[in-house]
């Protein structure tokens, strides 16, 4: 499963133009406390969060995450978007909650494996 597939299945918005939608998705991680995500997320995971600033991109990049999903109608700050255009890590969005998106993503990955 790659990011493209979850964009379609979860009906996500893609905020950055150069998003690499072929990155492999190995799992998901939900968190808004940056140290929690930094210390515990793993390579290939999709990160669901309400945080919308540039440091989110730094953490996603440092931990080799596959995508960021901004939940609950959040939109990226200009600085976050700019960093996303540079890095190519997809910044995605949805009106849905982390509970709903996480549940669906979990199910998609379970069926896929």
């Amino acid at each position, binding site marked *: 499963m790659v990011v493209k597939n979850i964009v379609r299945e979860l009906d996500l918005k893609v905020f950055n133009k150069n998003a690499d939608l072929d990155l492999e998705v190995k799992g998901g991680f939900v968190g*808004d*406390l*940056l*140290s*929690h995500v*930094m*210390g515990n997320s793993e*390579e290939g995971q999709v990160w669901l*969060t309400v*945080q919308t*600033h*540039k*440091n989110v991109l*730094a*953490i996603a*990049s*440092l*931990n080799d995450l596959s995508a960021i999903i901004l939940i609950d109608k959040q939109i990226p700050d200009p*600085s976050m978007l700019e960093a996303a255009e540079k890095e190519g890590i997809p910044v995605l969005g949805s009106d849905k909650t982390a509970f709903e998106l996480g549940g669906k993503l979990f199910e998609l990955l379970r069926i896929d494996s």
Partner: protein
Amino acid sequence: MSGITFSYKIDGGDFVNAGKASSEIKRTLKQLNVAQKTIKRVVVSLYEAEVNIVAHAHRGEINVLINAEEISITLKDEGPGIESVEQAMEVGYSTASPSVVSMGFGAGMGLPNMKKNSDYLNVESKVGVGTTVTIKVALVG
């Protein structure tokens, strides 16, 4: 002693550039074919330490030495210092400002993350003067 060295200057409050040192060190360790797990430990530790200067201090300097056996990182800042290092090491203890907390920093997990992901961690601090953090991670074995 031979090795590769890096040096960075950090400004307090400069969240825009937080993570730059971590990102460059990550790239270097990758080029040196260091195991991914080890790189991750270095990156978590360095990122947290870098953010602590940005979030809590006025300015600081990071010096990194990489040799065949280990990476040794020293982060020296001018800032308020830490009254009780023992207390600062506790999960959940934080004096971060509300604006820093609203960004998702200030969970009080930074120093515990550093402790968990390093082979050696030393924090020396003088209140009103500054803090020096030394982190070492073995690159082999």
